[in-house]
């Protein structure tokens, strides 16, 4: 199993995509967090709901976890979809005929990459966000234990997202279909669903189990939960829900697509 993990890890790191996407994520998240910090500090009462100033830093620092999770998910999706796209799935299954093992190895070997994405995405949000807050005379609260807990939870959320992406790729092996599905769902369908569902009490209970809400729950709050009054699962509930999605995708993918002839 160690050999298989090393093999899968080398596949992640031996193409350019992972660091290209990582840089894009860092820049995008830094700019977004900076922008959010700016808007919260400039006109807290006009542009949004009334905001407790002590909560502003954590909302800014979880920007990557609440808005940037598509990046690690995308890298994860390509672990399988990319192999099918470039037909390297044949040598992969030749080297390890047990396809369940390959799937598990890909999900486990995604952890270090997920951690890197979590670290860089969160760091970009924190650095840019804290700088803007400081410039606008708001305490970035970097001396507080609670702030660092939020930061660590954001890293964890993004790490889990990459694993979810791998499992989704096992189900959607067509690279284009996988990317489009991921982006449309995370950027369009889910945000609308969360806001819409949060208007009713039963819907709120459904909404907190959506993958995006589960990710926010891990990170401990986000822009969406600040905008609406939606409730979130406890942190470990969020981890369990998101890993539940990963398990569901993995099981369905293994039973269907990965069980088929490779040709």
């Amino acid at each position, binding site marked *: 199993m160690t050999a298989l993990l090393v093999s899968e890890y080398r596949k992640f790191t031996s193409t350019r995509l992972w660091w290209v996407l990582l840089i894009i994520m860092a820049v995008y998240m830094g700019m977004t967090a900076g922008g959010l910090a700016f808007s919260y500090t400039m006109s807290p009462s006009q542009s949004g709901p009334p905001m407790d100033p002590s909560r502003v830093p954590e909302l800014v620092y979880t920007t990557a976890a609440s808005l940037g999770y598509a990046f690690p998910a995308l890298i994860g999706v390509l672990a399988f979809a990319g192999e099918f796209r470039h*037909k390297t799935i044949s040598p992969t299954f030749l080297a390890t005929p047990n396809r369940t093992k390959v799937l598990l190895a890909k999900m486990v070997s995604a952890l270090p990459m997920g951690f890197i994405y979590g670290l860089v995405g969160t760091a970009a949000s924190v650095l840019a966000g804290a700088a803007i807050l400081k410039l606008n005379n708001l305490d970035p609260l970097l001396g507080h234990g609670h702030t660092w807990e939020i930061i660590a939870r954001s890293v964890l959320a993004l790490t889990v997202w990459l694993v979810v992406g791998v499992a989704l790729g096992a189900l959607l092996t067509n690279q284009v279909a996988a990317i489009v599905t991921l982006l449309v769902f995370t950027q369009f369908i889910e945000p609308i669903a969360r806001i819409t569902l949060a208007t009713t009490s039963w819907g709120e209970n459904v909404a907190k189990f959506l993958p995006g809400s589960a990710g926010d729950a891990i990170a401990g709050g986000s822009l969406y939960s600040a905008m609406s009054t939606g409730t979130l699962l406890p942190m470990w509930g969020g981890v369990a829900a998101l890993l539940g999605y990963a398990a569901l995708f993995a099981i369905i993918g293994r039973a269907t697509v990965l069980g088929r002839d490779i040709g």
Partner: protein
Amino acid sequence: MSQNTPAHEEIRFSHLTKRFGTLTAVNDLSFTVAPGRVTGFLGPNGSGKTTTLRMLLGLSKPTAGTATFGNTRYADLKHPSRTVGAALDASSFHPGRTARDHLRAYAPLTGASDAWIAELLALVGLSSAATKRVGEFSLGMTQRLALASALLGDPEYLVLDEPANGLDPQGIRWLREFLRHLAASGKTVLVSSHILSEVQQSVDDVVIIAEGTLRFAAPIAELHQFARPRVRLRSPQVTAAAELAARSGWQVTQEDGAFVIYDESLTSVGTAAFAAGLEIHELADLTEPLEESFLRLTAPSDKNASEADAVGPEGTAAQSGDPHGPTHTTEARA
């Protein structure tokens, strides 16, 4: 079957069948690949070669029958990639990965060290392209990289699907020498091609399939024998020619005012005719080239069914025995 095999056993295909819906891609295919030899797996495009090899390697599930290394299915091998090396598709590379990184990605599972990878890249002539991305490779270079990948685990068996595809004449010559090199090191090589001449000089045995069924399986020498020598002799002295044929014990048929003499060489017929003082207007070798035998063997069954049964590649292969030891079975089609 083969008791005194070297380090490893033969590859066995037994009643292997694959159906895709109503289409039967591989139909009750049975043959063996002798260890330590190079076997050419030949057939036209779409005859079921790739499907057969993918079933052997566990990438596709057979509808019926088995394909095993000795008695072991690929998926049940203890160290699959150290036992069997395969090159199935020259395009199974991530274009953004370098040649060396591609090999390094699979190396942990084969126990290949970085030094061995460097050696392999040198062996296939890609040392200078080791750090180039595969997307920049020519087709010939990806074929070489595919061979290097197959050799990563220094396997006993090599399964190569159309490795000559896309190679230029120099590349094909290089491949021939490469296959002989592999055979000399005692490996069992199963190499497919749709062009006999590509592998003709480097294989010991041939297995020919068409329309998913076995048409011929024997040492390559027997494919030569299968092409029965025929000489056409045309002479105005018809009676004298007939007498000569009778005297020489030739088996002849007459067609189009000429004699066709079977199982004799051009030289022997010419010599006899000269000795008999026969006036010759035409003396021609009608023996079909190897490629012709191949084409006839792989012709669509509706056209050659009666012919193939009459000439009987099954009979030829099964009865003439194998001077090299391992048994080649050719199952009669039901």
